[in-house]
């Protein structure tokens, strides 16, 4: 009657060697998974179809892998980010680095191609044409769906690359996703079970267990139409997003100012509005224009640029509601290149 139950006993021992050995095993497992087990955690399909609302849980801060020219290329990620290139941290002498922080509008896609590239690569092309004697490197850290909160994180990461100039393209459309993502992450890591998902060994084994037992891929418990702001009225949500955007842009500018780093702010634009920016975009652009400070902080008013282009020649600049087509990308690149040159004396 008095003895402990069969599966749960221990005799008189001064040191719990079994428990210590169990802990050591678990630590080794975690380290082993982190060191040697590098599957393509985030497939392109997962990324494009689910991200950022339903990432495979637990892989924040993990590695991301993409097929690039028939090879899988993996890169360290920050906050579930995807970087299709690997950039050397150490900047060679005489190299000039331009970093782009943005979302889908400035993203180059998993297979960037110069001929079909978005405006950042076109800016690079224009600059290289203007100053073939200079060594230039474009580091595009844009990620589709990123709102201003995660752009601040990217900005901090960008500083590691020792940039000479940063182009920040903040858009008003992704702020709702920031709220959804925060709600998702909070729900994902809530409770003890959620905290365990910070362990990569747990996530890898959980994935194996779920596959073996036909458990459906977990979906975020936060419905896509709900977010951190659920319950707030539309006006309160707009105010919250505006304040968040302004705070985050100011944070990036302060980080840049502390390092005497010139910044170009690219304005928001959209096709479905007569002034090509809409109410929220107008407010954002108005705010961005107030931050202009000589060559240190410049602002490209994209709606104004597009309006004048449309007035001069009847042409389309958008391929959908907000993304530029090749014409639009070229227009933005043409406008940005001289601004970059004015900010970087080495290119003048």
């Amino acid at each position, binding site marked *: 009657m008095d003895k402990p139950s069969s599966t749960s006993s221990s005799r008189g021992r001064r040191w719990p060697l*079994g428990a*210590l050995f169990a802990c050591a*095993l678990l630590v080794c497992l975690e380290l082993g998974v982190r060191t040697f087990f590098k599957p393509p955690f985030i497939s392109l399909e997962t990324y494009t179809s689910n991200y950022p609302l339903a990432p495979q849980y637990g892989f924040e801060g993990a590695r991301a892998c993409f097929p690039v020219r028939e090879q899988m290329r993996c890169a360290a990620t920050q906050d579930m980010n995807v970087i299709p290139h690997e950039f050397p941290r150490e900047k060679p002498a005489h190299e000039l680095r331009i970093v782009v922080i943005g979302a889908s509008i400035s993203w180059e896609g998993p297979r960037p191609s110069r001929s079909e590239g978005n405006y950042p690569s076109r800016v690079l092309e224009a600059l290289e044409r203007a100053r073939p004697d200079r060594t230039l490197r474009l580091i595009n850290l844009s990620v589709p769906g990123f709102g201003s909160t995660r752009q601040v994180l990217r900005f901090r990461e960008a500083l590691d690359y020792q940039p000479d100039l940063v182009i920040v393209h903040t858009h008003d459309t992704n702020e709702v996703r920031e709220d959804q993502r925060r709600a998702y992450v909070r729900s994902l890591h809530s409770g003890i*079970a959620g905290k365990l998902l910070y362990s990569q060994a747990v996530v890898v084994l959980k994935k194996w267990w779920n596959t073996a037992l036909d458990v459906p891929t977990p979906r975020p418990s936060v419905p896509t139409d709900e977010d951190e702001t659920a319950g707030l009225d539309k006006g309160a949500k707009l105010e919250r997003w505006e304040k968040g955007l302004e705070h985050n842009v100011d944070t990036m500018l302060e980080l840049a100012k502390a390092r005497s780093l010139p910044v170009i702010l690219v304005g928001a634009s959209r096709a479905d509005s007569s002034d090509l920016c809409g109410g929220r975009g107008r407010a954002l652009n108005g705010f961005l224009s107030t931050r202009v400070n000589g060559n240190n902080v410049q602002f490209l008013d994209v709606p104004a640029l597009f309006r004048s282009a449309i007035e001069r020649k009847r042409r389309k600049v958008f391929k959908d509601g907000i993304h530029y087509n090749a014409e639009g990308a070229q227009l933005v690149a043409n406008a940005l290149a001289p601004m970059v040159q004015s900010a970087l004396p080495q290119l003048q």
Partner: protein
Amino acid sequence: MLFNTGRFALFFSVVFLANWLLGKRWRAQNVLLVVASQWFYACWDYRFLGLLWFSMLVDYFVALRLDASDDARARKWLITLSVSVQLGILALFKYLNFFLDSGAGLLARLGFGTHSLALGIVLPVGISFYTFQTMSYTIDVYRRAIPAERNLLSFATFVSLFPQLVAGPIERARRILPQINAPRSLPPEALYAGASLILFGLYKKVFIADNLAPIVDQAFAKTATLTRAEAVLALYAFAFQIYGDFSGYTDIARGTAKLLGFDFALNFRHPYLARNPSDFWQRWHISLSSWLRDYLYIPLGGNQRGTARTLLNLFLTMLLGGLWHGASWTFVLWGAYHGFLLVAHRLLKPLLNRVRPAGIVGGGLWSALRCLLMFHLVVLGWLPFRAHSLLEVKQVLQSIAERGAELGDASISLKWLCACIALLMLLELADELRPHFLERRSFWARGLVYALVLLSISIAGAPGGQTFIYFQF
């Protein structure tokens, strides 16, 4: 406050630390434990704290009078008063609705049209456990097996000690009161044993019971359309769900008690490796079956009044044991089923002893066969225990008897079942064949098992703090 939640972990950490800091000051520790236990119980429903204290105070004062009195007639009156009050509380809160509803049903069948008479009485959590615990105390004092406890604080600690307050084990005063009234220590081995019990308890609850629960719930939500495979799998799954759930709870209760310096009685001992019904009840919910034996079966005459009376006593004890679990005809059926098994075993015992093969191999195979048969009899017995009504019992039995055996979607449930119980059954079997199997292994083997258990909880432990099945009793 469920044992498998972060809230309980926080609560217990505070209590454990405070208890540990008080060192050998056991009276102060008792104050701490009584306060903590009231808080623990109030987290369920503070309104029933009054009922708990009423039940406790009645038995405290009755026991004092019983101890002091030498008048046999007065003592009989006192014990009758105590038992009547405790059973009255149980009858009012647990069984009144059942009897009213059954009475109304009977009247309706006899042609006297009547509507349901059920009252909206809430069942206080743990009522069956603490009333039985205090009843055993007063009966023991009445029998002069133990002296009455004079210190109300010690008695309150005995009745309301939070690890066992809501779902047992049903502790005996002669075992716990001496521990309460003495300095308690926490040697390293007790610390490891307590932590190990909590770990295995969590494993049984969140990995086994909570993962099997959806299989069972889904099946019992559609008893009219179950296939044979689904019905059979649901019964197997429930067998392990309830074992994981209840023995997991008990392990956590015993582990937390151990960390507070107490040693609770063993409540489960590999019940699914029992060889016969009598053996099963010496392995399953031992604290209840021994209570029923000592305070019901033996007072009824036990096996001292001839074969027929012994069989009747066995049957009645199990019938009432079934009713103790819940106020429903399904529990009565479950009790009657086990009563029938015990009676049948008692009758067949001489025959079984005669046909037992000789030799190690033959004996081993015979034991394995009996284990397997007993396991399946127990599994079948879980059907009325889990079903909501006698109609559901009938429907599931019909599914097993009449419908096709194709596995279909049940193959996933089968995989889940095997994955969930593999390690547990391996350890139980090893411990049955070689007692203290795990603790006799070297540290790396133990460590490997601990790591596997921890990983199982982390990887596939069902989140969300599911409630324990036995809390409803």
